[in-house]
């Protein structure tokens, strides 16, 4: 049996893998499918028992209304995009070098520093909301995309550092030494060698930072007024005190997820590619 053949496995393993993938698809997609259905059915069909999926209940009115109110959703998405891109790029730009320093550059007490950095995320955000609001409002930066982006940066940065540090720790010494011998400085080694071979964790970290900033609700709620409103607030606006405009909310949620999916498509290659082979531990 060839090794490639072995990788795929025998009949029973292939069957198991196939079944597992089917389960995985159901597990991930079924609730999403329901979300999609909810967005194209009249509410009276959804509260029927069992849900009435007959074609006369199909409607595009939710999407028409939501897209018609593009001022709110569109601006929310634009705001979210700006904030999330800023938080993602900044947390990678700051976090990757910091993680590299903590993993490999003999910074004194690196483990303790890494832990302290992560510990900033162990205090529930509710506890820091009021003091943080105080600072930002004194600075006059309430309802400002930049201040929101910076706050998200501070939430994402520790996680990004932590994820990347643990991956950088596993890079064999030899590569950096070889780069040093080849004439690359510390920064050059980081840029030309370490980053390119860390695409999967970088991709994971980037997707993480983006999604978290894109979807963050609580700080968006207290730190914005109207002009810097992000998309989760726009979506939440469909749920009122006496009524939830469920179909429109689902339609808005579906629309708002498109950029994240595009991001996943974009980063798919990063997530797939691995350079493990050829960098055995020295």
């Amino acid at each position, binding site marked *: 049996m060839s090794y490639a053949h072995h990788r795929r496995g025998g009949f029973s393993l292939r069957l198991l893998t196939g079944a597992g993938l089917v389960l995985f698809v159901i597990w991930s997609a079924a609730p999403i499918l329901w979300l999609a259905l909810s967005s194209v059915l009249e*509410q009276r069909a959804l509260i029927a028992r069992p849900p009435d999926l007959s074609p006369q209940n199909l409607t595009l009115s939710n999407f028409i209304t939501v897209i018609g109110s593009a001022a709110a959703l569109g601006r929310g998405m634009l705001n979210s995009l700006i904030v999330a891109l800023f938080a993602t790029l900044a947390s990678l730009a700051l976090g990757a070098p910091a993680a590299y320093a903590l993993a490999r550059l003999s910074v004194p007490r690196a483990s303790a520093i890494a832990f302290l950095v992560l510990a900033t995320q162990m205090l529930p955000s509710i506890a820091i909301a009021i003091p943080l609001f*105080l600072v930002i409002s004194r600075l006059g930066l309430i309802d400002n995309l930049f201040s929101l982006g910076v706050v998200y940066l501070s939430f994402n940065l520790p996680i990004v550092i932590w994820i990347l540090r643990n991956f950088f720790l596993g890079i064999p010494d030899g590569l950096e030494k070889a780069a040093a011998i080849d004439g690359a400085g510390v920064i050059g080694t980081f840029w030309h060698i370490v980053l390119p071979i860390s695409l999967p964790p970088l991709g994971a970290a980037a997707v993480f930072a983006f999604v978290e900033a894109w979807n963050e609700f609580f700080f968006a709620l207290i730190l914005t007024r109207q002009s810097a409103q992000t998309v989760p607030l726009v979506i939440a606006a469909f749920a009122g005190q006496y009524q939830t405009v469920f179909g429109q909310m689902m339609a808005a949620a579906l629309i708002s997820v498109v950029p994240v999916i595009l991001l996943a498509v974009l980063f798919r290659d990063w997530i797939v590619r691995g350079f493990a082979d050829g960098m055995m531990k020295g």
Partner: protein
Amino acid sequence: MSVLLSRRDMLLAACAAGAAASLPFDTARASEALSVFGPLPPDPAPPGAAKFAEAAFEAWKKAHNAQVSYDLLAWPQLHDRMATAFASGSAPWNVLYMCGWVPEFAAFLAPFADDLPKALVDDLPASSFETVTWQGKRYGAVFTLSLLTLFYNKEHLAEIGFSAAPKNWDEFKRAAKELTRAGRYGFVANYGDPAGIGGTASYWMAFLQQAGGKMYGEDGLPVFKGDAGVAALQMMMDLMPGSDPGSISYAGINDATNVLMAGRASMMMNWPFMWNAAQDPAQSQIVGKLGSAILPAGPAGSASIDGTDAWTVSKTSADPALARQLVEFYLDADVQKRQALDTGWLPIRLSVLADPEVQQKLPNAAVVLEQAKHPYNSFVTPDFNQVTQALGTEVQKALQGQKTAAQAIADASDLVTAIVKRRG
């Protein structure tokens, strides 16, 4: 037609309002600028945010040389944003929407309602000031008469020989029981969230007043640990066999409303806004079948609770007079009428409530007006949330059979006493 589609229109309008509000504050300096904090439609939003009385609003702004910017938020998030801003001492708004939070935030509000014109005040139900008064001062003006009344499915009730809604507790219980059949439930409620106005505790407060009880004595300490309190809870427990068992898990009123609108529950206690929603064929299966009535009478008669949607003025407002004038505009008879006709939110002015056009368009207006003749205290205090949380949790335990009514009320009384005493 416009009524049926109003919920969408209002959302559109809200978005437009949001866009308008995003103009930088500086450009508004030339004229007087007012910042108004309130809910997004379909919750009761002001003119310019919801789609009504727009022309009048423009005219008012012009006449007063005022810029009004709206900071609107989905209702469930209002309290959090306000609490954060107040706690940090930097709430930027001049006019604020309040829903039972006046005692809690009284320190930040101006007692402007004492200065309202007498003609206006005389046209408002005196009891509507109960939830906006704290320590003898009136901090707000309720702008929509939003009382809990009974909504019912006329077809279902007819099936069991009820030509009208149940009039008293016994009829209520009997109807609920008999209506529970064929995959339907006689009654549905949202008992999932214990706290706040419209939470489990506040339902109990309606029953409490129907039983002739009240929450607090003159000294501010709880006095509900008597027969009335227990009877109110027992009534709720007795309704359970005729209720949707899911009631205990419905955390928002729309969870319960949907059951009624699906035709699988026959009665529920709900707010006036329910009326319009139930006539919208896109979401309701009971169009034309809905009836409304005052809440069934307990030993002391009918009683309800107040939704307490009110406008208040911030203490730090640069121009308190202008802020007060804006609230007066919101309470203007014509604006109130448009509010009722265009959004379905009932007016608070008695004269507008009595208006035939309003009564014709909103048949439940008369019912709510009738309900207003009975007590409808929501017993708001600075620690209302905490009190209703403790109380509502005890009520939930009794409804789930973990405690007897007497036990739950006794425990609730202890908890509430401790909370009130901690406030000092």
